[in-house]
């Protein structure tokens, strides 16, 4: 099955998925699974975890597609499920730590660095390395906000918190990165 092409899923396919047609789900999977996988991989830095996330997230998508009302894009809806599932999977694996533990990294983050040192500045490589050292909760907020473009309100809701919570975690995460870069 092809993966990762950014395809727009039309209303007809969504209607077929609501009726439970497996082929329609296969199309949705082909369009979005790779993005889900990479989102989970960037947060967890672990392929096995990311696979579990995609598995659990798509089971939820198949079970809940009838509750999708088209108010946001299908990708926004699936991304929300993926982020939520990632948090749950990491919590199950006890990777989640208190927000106060911002100086300790959780889990086993081993994301490869982008590009080669030929065309990337040293600061960028430092940032990637330091990103891996961030606690998974702070990294989650950072990736969801800065990379996925989710709002603080959406991120706060994922954690059962307010948007101030998300702003605070993001601020502290960036602060830590800056501080680590200067040392």
């Amino acid at each position: 099955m092809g993966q990762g092409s950014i395809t727009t899923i039309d209303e007809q396919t969504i209607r077929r998925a609501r009726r439970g047609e497996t082929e329609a789900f296969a199309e949705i999977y082909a369009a979005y699974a790779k993005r889900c996988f990479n989102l989970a991989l960037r947060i967890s830095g672990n392929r096995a975890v990311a696979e579990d996330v995609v598995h659990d997230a798509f089971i939820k998508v198949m079970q809940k597609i009838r509750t999708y009302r088209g108010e946001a894009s299908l990708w926004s809806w699936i991304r929300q499920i993926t982020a939520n599932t990632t948090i749950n999977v990491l919590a199950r694996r006890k990777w989640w730590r208190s927000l106060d533990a911002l100086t300790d990294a959780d889990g086993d983050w081993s994301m490869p660095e982008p590009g080669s040192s030929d065309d990337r500045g040293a600061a960028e490589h430092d940032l990637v390395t330091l990103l891996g050292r961030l606690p998974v909760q702070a990294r989650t907020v950072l990736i969801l906000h800065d990379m996925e473009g989710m709002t603080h309100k959406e991120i706060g809701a994922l954690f059962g918190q307010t948007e101030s919570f998300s702003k605070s975690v993001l601020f502290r995460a960036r602060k830590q990165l800056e501080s680590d870069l200067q040392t």
Partner: protein
Amino acid sequence: MTARSQTSNLENVLARLPSEDLPDHLWSRILETHHATRRLRRRRLGVGGGLFAVIVISLALVFRGADVPATDRLAELQARGQLLEERAINYTIAGSGLSPAARIELGETRAAILNLDQALALAYAEDRPDAEITALWERRVELLGRLLATYAIHGDGAQAI
């Protein structure tokens, strides 16, 4: 490096993180789990369907006793459904008085009610929105009404106790 350029730099780096491919077997694994879950759910529904009807009737009785406000559409439908169901149960039909067509119609309506009970059980299990559950209850009341009408029209010798 300023905070602003630092943030911008970070966003650039994040955007350049490599994108990796999914393992090919993942979709078949998802489908297997999905089908297994559906099979399990159907089995549970089969067992739970009868129990659900009893629970629904009991809940309707409790709601009626608790004097649920008339504005609560769902509670109102449940109470109406309960009333119609009691009337349907209390109908006695002289079997010989029913035409084959009437028996088929009754059978179809009863089957539709059973299917609806399963759909309601699933809706409650999946914590579906009230609007969806209300629509199912509306359909249930409608079917119970049809059941009673069939008794009344075709049930030669039928009587309400």
